[in-house]
């Protein structure tokens, strides 16, 4: 109300503190995301998670690739890296191995992580590098204007599938699990508290964790497919998402406007790359001594 009165009196609005000032680069705000976009919610969940965990922000690095979600790194006040398209994961791998004390979060989109970065995704998961991947899945290449993505559901329209998509979409949790990820969860950007909780769990879990965030793209995916605004997509998520923890990942395919199964699917233990490396170094030393 104070702000309204100030506007009426044509006074300058005094700058007020934002609760996320410590974690967000306020000088970069306003952000580039369109009205109705879900990426901001994913960022909020991530920032909330960081604040809840009380981690030292100097020891957190956020790495992004290219795309709408790729811009996340630029808004978070940690060491942030905006790398080239698809190469966020190898960059993060280097960061982690260069300084194992860092906590690395890769925040990127479906196209960046699953399409062009798909190979890095598989191999980072296989090596079980200690990274948390937050993959925002909006079913489309939004930054370039709405092209078909490997996650686009069948029969959905995009600019490069002008007659309806006919490719089978990727099932990101299944891909992550089959490649060896130790923590796999999926939420929509509506499930804020659960998403925050998952991010905390994934962050603290040693090994390759992946949290998929289904997010509305109001500008391209919704518009081309006549699905309404961001709020309509949120309502859709509300009505059509089902929480099934521990569901086998092969059942997690998403069809066009079909039910979305969310939850935590995988939480298992595997030795991480760093652990194996340490073990190997020890082994080599003993062999050296013996010989």
């Amino acid at each position, binding site marked *: 109300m104070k702000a309204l009165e100030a506007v009426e009196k044509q006074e300058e609005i005094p700058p007020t503190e934002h609760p996320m000032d410590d974690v967000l680069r306020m000088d970069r705000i306003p952000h580039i995301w369109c009205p109705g976009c879900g990426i901001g919610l994913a960022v909020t969940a991530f920032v909330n998670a960081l604040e809840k965990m009380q981690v030292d922000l100097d020891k957190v690095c956020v790495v992004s690739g290219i795309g709408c979600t790729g811009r996340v790194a630029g808004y978070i006040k940690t060491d942030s890296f905006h790398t080239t398209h698809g190469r966020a994961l190898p960059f993060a791998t280097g960061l982690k191995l260069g300084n194992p004390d860092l906590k690395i979060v890769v925040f990127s989109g479906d196209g960046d992580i699953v399409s062009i970065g798909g190979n890095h995704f598989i191999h980072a998961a296989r*090596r079980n590098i200690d990274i948390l991947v937050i993959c925002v899945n909006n079913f489309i290449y939004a930054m370039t204007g709405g092209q078909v993505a490997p996650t686009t559901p069948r029969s959905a329209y995009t600019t490069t599938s002008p*007659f309806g998509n006919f490719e089978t979409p*990727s099932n990101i949790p299944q*891909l992550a699990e089959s490649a060896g990820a130790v923590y796999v969860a999926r939420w929509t950007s509506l499930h804020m508290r659960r998403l925050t909780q998952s991010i905390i769990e994934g962050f603290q879990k040693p090994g390759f964790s992946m949290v998929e965030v289904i997010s509305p793209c109001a500008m391209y995916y919704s518009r081309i497919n006549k699905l309404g605004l961001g709020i309509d997509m949120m309502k859709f998520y509300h009505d059509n998402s089902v929480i099934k923890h521990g569901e086998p990942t092969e059942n997690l395919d998403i069809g066009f406007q079909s039910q979305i199964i969310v939850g935590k699917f995988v939480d298992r233990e595997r030795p991480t790359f760093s652990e194996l490396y340490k073990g190997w170094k020890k082994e080599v030393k003993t*062999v050296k001594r013996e010989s």
Partner: protein
Amino acid sequence: MDKIIEAFHDGINKSGRDREKMCMVTDIAYDPEVVDYLGVDLFHTNRGRAIAFATGMKLSNPNLILAVFIGDMATLGGNHFVHAARRNMDLFVVCVNDFRYRKVAAQETPGDFSRLEFSSYCSIEQPLNLPHLARSNGAVYVARWTALHHEDLINSMAEALPQAGFKLIEVISPKPELLEFFYLNSEIKHGEDTAKVGIEEDKKIVVGKFVERERETFIDAYNKQHYKVLGDKFIKIAAE
């Protein structure tokens, strides 16, 4: 390696497919004599790009039968592998897996420290479970054999070649001295859950045919969708 080519040769015979229409796309250098021997067109592309190259060939001439021979756990071309399986591109992929087995390497060269270092360097990472990756991305036929399971390999190839969709046969073929070790340390389990066939230390290698199913291929899906929307205006892809 020769064993695998031999099996492929017999596999083609057994499956009755037309060699004239067959193209072998690889990212590993083969002796050119292979062409004369097999009687197929051979394309040696750069590392990791064989599957993508074959995708282009298949979509340009759907009559071609494409056999893709890749090596080394699909490291460089892993992404093409995943996405070709997802699209169910009509390719027959043979992945020649010549990984180093940590324990064996250590046993084999106990005194030679430098070699040990190199061998175990390769193996501190956990290997990829290729059959599982293929199945979870949608391959229609997944099998694994060692190079010494010669008859099984031939049968598998003959069985897979005529099927439509993305087929994977992983052939475990380390250096010749180790072949027998792997052969003896393997057990055949047809239809085993691919999640359980990961290659681990101190465990027998599970071989066999793991997956055989039917899924709409990329070209069928493309044709169907476009016929549905465009009707008679749609022109199918055909060979020139």
